[in-house]
């Protein structure tokens, strides 16, 4: 059965499937690292911690990018009311990106990192070895080429079709993503400058332009599942992302407190990042309001659950847990502790992993020719996945927060001489790390349940 409005939307399917495969890999490496936190020499020869972490974070970034691309290929034709400019280009870019991604991950796993750096001629244009930007320079160039082709394809589609607010917001977000990634190629010898502009990629992605992508996907799914008037949904989309950028751009200052930067950043960063939770709170009100005012009962309950869930978890993870340690006098003690890790986990899951699963949940039944929604049994299985993963992530965050508070108490607050050393402190945090690892296993069970829902079919009554 063909249930797509525009046939070219079908190119989104491989993007979504591959995203979920990488997601599974991300979680498996997360569990390895989690165990290494307490059993330090676990697999230390085969997968040293730094390798596991690089794979864990890079898989996250790449699967989210695959998810965003799939979302854009699915949404833009329907929003523009025209077929995609070139479905063939979209498929070619999929294979290039997938091959480059797999090759890079295998490079991390199979040879020492310094060997990978030499093989890929890092010395010609050194960009490697910086957190989240560990990819060989050649991979980074590949990412830029894929992004350019992707933006060209979408841009040509929008130019010949309808220009909705969702399209425009999505495009500004994606163009911003590509533009700010270019700072990954700037790696001065001066560490202070290196760090300053490194944040132009990292912060302006996740607390800037990615929020536009998230907002656009959420607005699209809300229009579809609630049937509320587009004018209303798009108006509030603009309000929310305006707040996100107005707070988030100068909010970058919360990374410039301890970086050979002038003290005024402590004020600018504190004030503007204190506003950053507001757009996320507005997103919760917005999602729940629109669902309450729905004009139709959409059969895809799971997609609605993901849409509501992502707003709440993004508010908690990015908003509340971000605020916890964003004020300069607090950050002085918490900077680079497990509190940062706690915030990172819930924010990425809540805002970005969940928004990708929202659009996958909405679009996959149509892409697979099933119809508006999966059968009831499959949706129930999917919702089990939702709750297990989400609750597990809440516990992961709470345990890491506990570890972080104790770490700050033992290692950061006492004077030199009385403070415990890093390694001694880590031993005292072991119970929290064990609990976090257990919560991580529950997360994996949730993920397995979620993935398995794609194979669940309605029982035929005999």
């Amino acid at each position: 059965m063909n249930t797509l409005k525009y046939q070219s939307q079908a190119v989104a399917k491989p993007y979504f499937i591959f995203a979920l495969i990488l997601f599974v890999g991300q979680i498996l490496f997360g569990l390895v690292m989690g165990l290494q936190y307490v059993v330090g020499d676990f697999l230390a020869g085969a997968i040293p911690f730094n390798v596991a972490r690089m794979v864990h974070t890079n898989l996250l970034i790449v699967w989210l990018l695959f998810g965003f691309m799939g979302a854009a290929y699915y949404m833009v034709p329907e929003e523009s009311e025209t077929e995609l400019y070139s479905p063939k280009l979209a498929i070619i870019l999929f294979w290039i990106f997938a091959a480059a991604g797999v090759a890079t991950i295998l490079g991390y796993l199979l040879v020492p990192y310094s060997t990978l750096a030499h093989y890929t001629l890092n010395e010609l244009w050194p960009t490697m070895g910086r957190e989240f930007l560990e990819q060989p320079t050649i991979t980074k160039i590949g990412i830029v080429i894929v992004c350019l082709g992707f933006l060209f394809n979408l841009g040509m589609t929008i130019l010949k079709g309808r220009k909705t607010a969702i399209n425009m917001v999505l495009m500004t977000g994606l163009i911003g993503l590509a533009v700010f990634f270019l700072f990954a190629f700037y790696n001065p010898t001066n560490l202070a400058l290196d760090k300053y502009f490194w944040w132009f990629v990292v912060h302006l992605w996740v607390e800037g332009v990615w929020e536009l992508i998230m907002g656009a996907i959420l607005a699209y799914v809300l229009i579809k599942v609630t049937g509320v008037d587009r004018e209303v949904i798009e108006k509030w989309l603009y309000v929310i992302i305006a707040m996100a950028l107005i707070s988030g751009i100068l909010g970058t200052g919360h990374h410039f407190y301890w970086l050979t930067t002038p003290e005024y950043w402590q004020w600018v960063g504190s004030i503007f990042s204190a506003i950053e939770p507001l757009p996320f709170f507005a997103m919760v009100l917005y999602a729940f309001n629109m669902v309450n005012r729905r004009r139709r009962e959409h059969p895809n309950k799971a997609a609605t659950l993901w849409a509501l869930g992502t707003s709440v978890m993004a508010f908690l993870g990015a908003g509340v847990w971000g605020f916890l340690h964003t004020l300069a006098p607090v950050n002085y003690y918490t900077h680079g502790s497990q509190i940062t890790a706690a915030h990172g986990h819930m924010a990425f899951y809540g805002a970005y992993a969940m928004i990708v699963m929202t659009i996958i949940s909405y679009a996959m039944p149509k892409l697979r020719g099933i119809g508006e929604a999966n059968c009831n049994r499959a949706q129930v299985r999917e919702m089990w996945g939702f709750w297990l993963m989400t609750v597990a992530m809440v516990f992961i965050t709470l345990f890491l927060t506990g570890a972080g508070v104790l770490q700050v108490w033992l290692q950061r607050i006492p004077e030199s001489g009385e403070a415990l050393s890093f390694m001694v402190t880590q031993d005292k945090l072991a119970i929290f790390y064990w609990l976090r690892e257990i919560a991580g296993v529950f997360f994996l069970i949730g993920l397995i349940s979620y993935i398995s829902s794609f194979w669940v079919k309605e029982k035929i009554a005999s």
Partner: protein
Amino acid sequence: MSERFTKGMARNIYYGGSVFFFLIFLALTYHTTKVMPERDHRENITEAVAHGKELWEENNCIGCHSLIGEGAYFAPELGNVYKRRGGEAGFKAFLNGWMKAQPLNIPGRRQMPNFHLSDKEIDDLAEFLKWTSELDTNDWPPNIEG
């Protein structure tokens, strides 16, 4: 409210507000880069420091350690390790001994790999960490433990 506050107005706030605050951000960035030389004493970046940074990157040190609070939280902060482990008098000897003793192979302990660096390379890495420890970081970290 909902009738008078239109989508067009919301759109203008989005585009106008973003551009306005981005320009302020660029202006502050410009000012920051102008005054940074006084705080990062870049005149002390020797060839050894530059090479040390390359070694830091090519061995993915940030994958376990943090440097001025950024990186992984699996192993100790190294932004001030120069001061914590001996300073002028003892740091270079300490680092050389430490790097060569890896992996420690203590059962259950977090394990640092051996990166097989030469004496010259370890010395350059030490120069990089020394230069880093002298950055003016507004008094961060709060104590010597990092």
